């Protein structure tokens, strides 16, 4: 036990001696969560659009005013010819064009019907779709104002209630995700590097011939990083509560426990990577190239898992981050207790045991 504590001390010295890495280790997550918490959003805001108005009458002016008054759109350009649309889209400075037909007002008054074409640059399908929906909502609103005098019969009035996030803030979606990514990558990368480093520098040999047992070496390597990551997690949670006003509906204690569990899962994954990789370079490439994109894309951080093709939905189950994101959202936003997240918790525990078991099996106590 004394030897083991001595070993942990050595590890801590290593970590604290390298000021630059330490600074990065703590500074980076804070910088990232601040930056992304504010910047990453898929809400539609200030979209630049252009107008192609063939009639230039009272009604079109009213509609244009209504659209430019909304916070979603800025009328950037007034086009005069159909051909200009293509040019404007190719330069990429506008996202949509509103094309009013000729005699718009007259048609509206005489025939009770007029037509607008909403042309969107659909290279980004999501934005194009949202823009169309938002403009349609504004047009609906305009029609309602015009039709106020008419009594509508047999009307069904849906009353929609948005639960857990009534203001539809995208921060609520992204902060748990960013937190998960940071914890996962930092933990997995740190351990995998610190173990392969000893291999590469040749000091692993010295550790192996020491009276320390192999698993003591590994645990000794991991323990300091558990502490560091827990501090990181705590800082991130505090930031999300105080700066992004994320609610914690459930128990903070449970959130802490689950975070520690996820950190251990990530560290175990790091150990597994280090048993496969021979050099630091390989370890880093696996933990960065191999983990970053799958974690961002398959965890439900940005893109909803239920919309993915079925094979990918199945693959997403092996991403630990997916389960942790469900857990954090459950505790923070829905306020659920263990009764609702025991399944996810068990899966994370199972994954941890699996990673550790596999590492122990692959861990070589002899050098080739």
């Amino acid at each position, binding site marked *: 036990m004394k030897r083991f504590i001595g070993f942990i001390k050595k590890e801590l010295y290593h970590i604290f001696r390298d000021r630059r890495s330490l600074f990065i280790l703590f500074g980076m997550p804070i910088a990232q969560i601040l930056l992304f918490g504010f910047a990453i959003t898929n809400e539609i805001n200030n979209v630049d659009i252009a107008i192609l108005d063939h009639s230039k009458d009272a009604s079109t002016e009213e509609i244009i005013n209504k659209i430019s008054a909304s916070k979603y759109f800025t009328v950037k350009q007034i086009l005069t010819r159909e051909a200009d649309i293509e040019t404007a889209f190719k330069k990429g400075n506008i996202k949509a064009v509103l094309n009013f037909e000729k005699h718009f007002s007259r048609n509206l008054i005489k025939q009770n019907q007029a037509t607008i074409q909403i042309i969107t640059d659909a290279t980004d399908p999501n934005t194009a779709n949202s823009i169309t929906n938002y403009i349609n909502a504004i047009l609906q609103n305009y029609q309602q104002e015009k039709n106020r*005098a008419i009594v509508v019969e047999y009307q069904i009035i849906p009353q929609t209630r948005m639960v857990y996030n009534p203001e*539809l803030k995208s921060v609520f979606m992204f902060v748990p995700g960013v937190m998960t990514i940071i914890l996962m990558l930092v933990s997995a990368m740190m351990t995998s590097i610190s173990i392969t480093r000893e291999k590469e520098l040749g000091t692993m040999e010295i550790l192996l011939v020491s009276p320390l047992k192999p698993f003591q070496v590994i645990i000794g390597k991991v323990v300091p990083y558990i502490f560091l990551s827990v501090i990181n997690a705590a800082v991130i949670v505090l930031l999300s509560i105080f700066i992004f006003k994320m609610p914690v509906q459930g128990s903070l204690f449970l959130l802490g426990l689950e975070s520690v569990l996820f950190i251990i899962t990530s560290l175990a994954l790091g150990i597994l990577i280090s048993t496969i990789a021979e050099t630091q370079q390989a370890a880093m490439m696996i933990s960065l190239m191999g983990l970053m994109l799958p974690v961002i894309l398959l965890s439900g951080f940005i893109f909803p898992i239920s919309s993915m093709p079925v094979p990918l939905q199945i693959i997403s189950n092996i991403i630990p981050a997916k389960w942790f994101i*469900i857990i954090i959202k459950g505790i923070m936003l829905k306020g659920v207790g263990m009764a609702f997240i025991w399944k996810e918790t068990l899966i994370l525990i199972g994954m941890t045991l699996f990673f550790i078991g596999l590492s122990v099996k692959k861990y070589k106590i002899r050098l080739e």
Partner: protein
Amino acid sequence: MKTIGYIIQKEFKQIFRNKGMLPIIFILPILQLVILSNAATYEVKNIKFAYIDYDRTSTSRALIEKFNASAFFNVLTDFPSQEKASAAMLSGEVDVVMEIPNHFERNLLKEKNANLSITINAIDGAAAGVESVYVNQIVQSFNKDVKMNYMDTSKKITQPVTIESIPSFWYNTTLDYKTFMVPGILVLLVTMITLFLSGMNIVREKEIGTLEQINVTPIRKSQFIIGKLFPFWIIGMGLLTIGLILAKVIFNTPMLGSLLLLYAYTSIYILVILGIGLLISNFTDTQQQAMFIAWFFVVIFILMSGLFTPIESMPKWAQIVTEFNPIKYFVEIVRMVLLKGSGLGDILPQLLKTLLFAILMNVLAVWSYRKVN
């Protein structure tokens, strides 16, 4: 020239000798491109929908039938009570619950209007917005049917004014997400590979101690740097080529613009990334430090590039930050050239900025590289 040739030869030997790294450099990115591009979709479908029907009349059943028929909704069950529905919502089994109140049909026919309550799990705000639109569309279309059936046609009523809007989606008429994502993810993979490799390369020699041996040779600083970076430039261009071929063959990504232009731009862009990598190498002592810094920048570059979330939605200050993000320009250009067929004139501003970055980064990198400690 001959010296540079030898260094390049040495670098290539080192790259291809390392059997552990080869699959990571070539196979991993390609696998990710092919698999993960399918995951990146904001489309909302298979919405987990449940209902509580307190009314149990032909009207309420007809409404539910409408949801059953919709491709967007996956009608799971009906709940006998609100408590059961809330519990299912908490555990994440359902995302949208519609409650049809008692006397729904009677109110609709007698009082001329009836309420419906819809509860939506809004943690994913964007998806919730779309779900709400879909629900309203179905309810409205149902409402139209009801009016057709019951409205007294003999009575003369004033026609309401209607504005018909015709959406027209250019460049991607089917709103296919892969068309949008594949070029972007390709950019990302090219960037990550070249940045990580170049960032780690020189610092690795530093750490192992072989850099000193090179420093005492008569190789000039510029020769050394060119020799070091050229192989990664080749790897980057190679990855782009493989990626484009896969994009065409597997995803049938449209390629409207000039590929030559895209290659010309990429050749400059990779120089920017290599410059950044070299700069990181110069300012760090260990591979670990180099990787952390590279990782820090890559995560910021990726998430602020407009690849996954649109830049125009970001707050003003963040949009200014993205001006300094080289990935942003590459993502924009690859999409403009491939999907819209933009020409040199259209992408000139981005091209010039990238060129400026390339010069700046490489001058800084060469200047900060010291042969003597």
